């Protein structure tokens, strides 16, 4: 899928641990890990809102569209 999740990058830039973010958002570390790896079908708006609130970023900072297919 051409949508890449950049949560790992944002966590590293903000020096935030997955555990802290998972606790704040209200999801398990396991689910946060799946989200980081892009192994989920979707993200709920309220989850996105809480991640953005904690990391003080925009949704666009967390997600990138990268079209790998040749033109």
């Amino acid at each position: 899928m051409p949508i890449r999740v950049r949560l790992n990058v944002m966590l590293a830039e903000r020096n935030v641990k997955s555990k802290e973010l998972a606790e704040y958002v209200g999801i398990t570390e396991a689910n946060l890990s799946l989200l980081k790896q892009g192994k989920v079908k979707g993200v709920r708006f309220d989850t996105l809102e809480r991640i953005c609130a904690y990391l003080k970023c925009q949704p666009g900072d967390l997600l990138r569209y990268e079209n790998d297919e040749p033109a």
Partner: protein
Amino acid sequence: MITSLSPELSQPGPRPKRLERIRVVSRILARSCMGVSIVLAVALAAYWMVSTDEAILRDARLGGIAIRPIGWPVRLAGLAISAVPLACLIWGLLQARRCFESFAANRFFTPENSSRLRGLATAMLASAVLKPVVGAALSVVLSWQTYAQGKDLVINLSSDSLLALLFAGLVSVTAWVLAEANSIAEENAQFV
């Protein structure tokens, strides 16, 4: 690759009252299905054992004057024939029971439940289709040695059978809807 999520956000929020109501009613209905199955089987056996000849002939829609009493071989044959649609119905009730037990255990949108509902629909359909056939077979068996004029064939199509067919269709479509709901629930479970 999509992986299954742990359940905290992958399930809808708690609706305790409604869920508890579903659990309680499902438990009652599961027991009722079992109870009704036993009662139906016992009642059918009792009917063929203790009913009077007149009552049996009247229920089989056989008129005329019987010259011989209905003997035990005929009663046993009648029991065996009329047990066929009942066996289908009881199998369907047992499917419904397992479905209700699953609901009582908070398992709603599972492939097993939709397949059990389909089983119930099939059983109801088979029972409704077999009913007139069994009625005709019973009329022949009962009139074989009982009547002086020979064999009678009675074919009886009742509104009950037609309603049972419609109900079987309804349950069948509900099973498909449940299968569709199951795939939606599975997809929903992939959201964080």
